């Protein structure tokens, strides 16, 4: 019975949805990637509050999303995460949505846009990769053994603190000694969930979905991104019909953290150009 209640729990609470900015303006939804939570947008999202209705949320199993609502079956495929995006949009009665997805959430946004055509005005994909594993005639950047190593890495890094962190993850405001850990909990997830999410993220192959995308799309590509190399960004751009790619000066996988101004400018420039046309 308790389970039942959790499943039906409001999506806004379940996924820690935060709405800010101009209430009646065009909505812009930010979806963070594998590893952290909506805090990843802290240097970028405030800029958009002047002209947009800004929607932030934590992916299922991440950040302050309700850990009890993580359903292993549902989230064994990216479609489960895409369902959540659509559920948030429906619950907030959003339309003409600008979707900004980082890393794995870029692909989740693609899947959501295919499910409900017309819901999204634009997709902004930051460091997208439709497939991380190298294949015949395809460079994804990784071999399967690299992913196995990542899982080991996750295991080692959760080993020391998972037991100590569990109460903080479960949310325990009446234990102030956990305050220190709570501030460091942005990137901390239940180890079992982190493992599952790593698998879903790095073993998915959505190359076949790209050509079906009809939503106008901007791809933001960093230089020297080990997770989503430039070739992969170009592959995505060539596969999505109505898309353009902006190569940022930023390096690494998280330009919204390392070069927030440049990231904001690139999104603004694209939106300005495409809203006027």
């Amino acid at each position, binding site marked *: 019975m308790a389970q039942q209640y959790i499943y039906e729990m409001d999506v806004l609470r379940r996924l820690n949805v935060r709405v800010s900015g101009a209430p009646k303006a065009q909505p812009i939804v930010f979806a963070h990637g594998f590893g952290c939570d909506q805090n990843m947008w802290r240097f970028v999202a405030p800029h958009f509050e002047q002209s947009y209705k800004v929607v932030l949320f934590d992916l299922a199993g991440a950040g302050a999303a309700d850990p009890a609502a993580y359903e292993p079956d549902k989230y064994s495929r990216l479609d489960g995460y895409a369902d959540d995006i659509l559920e948030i949009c429906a619950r907030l009665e959003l339309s003409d949505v600008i979707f900004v997805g980082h890393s794995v959430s870029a692909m989740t946004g693609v899947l959501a846009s295919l499910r409900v055509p017309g819901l999204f005005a634009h997709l902004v994909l930051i460091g997208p990769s439709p497939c991380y594993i190298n294949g015949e005639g395809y460079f994804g950047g990784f071999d399967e053994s690299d992913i196995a*190593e*990542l899982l080991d*890495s996750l295991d080692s*890094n959760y080993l020391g603190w998972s037991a100590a962190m569990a109460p903080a993850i479960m949310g325990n405001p009446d234990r102030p000694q956990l305050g220190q850990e709570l501030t460091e909990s942005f990137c901390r997830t239940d180890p079992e969930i982190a493992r599952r999410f790593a698998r879903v993220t790095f073993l998915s192959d959505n190359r076949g979905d790209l050509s079906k995308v009809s939503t106008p799309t901007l791809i933001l590509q960093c230089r020297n*991104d080990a*997770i989503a190399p430039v070739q992969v960004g170009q592959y995505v751009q060539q596969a999505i019909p109505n898309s353009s790619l902006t190569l940022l000066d930023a390096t*690494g996988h*998280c330009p919204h953290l390392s070069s927030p101004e440049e990231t904001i400018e690139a999104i603004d420039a694209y939106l300005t150009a495409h809203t006027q046309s």
Partner: protein
Amino acid sequence: MNLPLSGDEPARLGFEEALLQHDPAELFDRAPCGYISAAPDGLIVAVNQTFLSWTGYTRSELVGNRSFQELLSPGGRIYYDTHFGPLLAMQGAVREIALEVVRADNGRIPVLVNAVMDSGADGGPKVIRIAIFDATERRAYEHELLRAKDAAESAEQRAVGLARTLQETLIPPRPPDIPGLDIGAGYRPSGNGDEVGGDFYDVFEIADGDWAAVIGDVAGKGVEAAVVTALARYTLRAAAVRTTLPSNALITLNEVLRAEHSERLCTAAFLRLRWHGPDWVVDMASAGHLLPLLTRPTEAPRPVGRTGSLLGVLRHPSLTDSSVRLEPGDSLLLYTDGVTEARNGGEFYGEDRLLSALERHRSLAAGDLATELVTEVVDFQAGLPRDDIAVVVIQVPASGP
């Protein structure tokens, strides 16, 4: 500067000598951990000798040429980009991150890494200071721990699987088809079913039109109880062939239990069912077990038979055989104390509730009645029974065979 231990000349000299050796540059280069200073994007701007010695790189290979994250294994690199880097950017520090550094010769060094991101006067990130600790031994130990944890988890799963398999051998998956009799049975282990319980039942053929039904409860739980349960079940099967009196079969079991020289206690009811025209004649004896309940179309449900001594204790248990005739429409219920001693708070399910349940469900077929009774008793305990529940329903169909 404060000099310690004034008056202690040798200590003072030692302090002075060490102080002369102290040099911040030396401490950086020869510290027992690796040091790297890097630009916010990870590009190495300074590295100490300890790190170079561990990894086999030259200073010029690294400084200005490689970023810290490029020295990591591919899996570690992903971890850096998805966790380490974002944490540094958001909170300015990370600590005790487990990674692997790839050496110049492609070997790996497991390391633990602390890092801080220092900001300039404008508040923007300026430099990452990284301390790297060799964690080879610790990682090996952690791998052992992980393996032990995995082993413990799979051992637990195997134990649960074993308990379930064992239980299935003690409780027939479904009762046999007997011409002229309708048999239903239900069983629910205690708790979440991870442990083998002590309840057992059995229904088996002795000869044409001659059947035996047994229900019992062995003291205790787990493998110990399972061994006695198996012993009891097969002893009664063997004894049933050699004797016609139910009390004799139970006495045989008593002797076997006592011969084992252990505290193996057991209650059991043994019923022999023989086909007589449209009726079945049931001879029965109970050794400390709850008496069967008889339901007849025109009578209220009631216990039948006489109860005798528990098995495994006395050399000469006192047991009484009695007999009842089952006519078409009659039904007998065998059950264990997991039914009547089911508790809800301080309240027992009790015989009265059971009798009224039989009254209420007198129109149900044997299988449905067994299922219904188990469900009711489980529900009474809010879904988590503290003891095993076993029921066997023996009905003579109203239409006859």
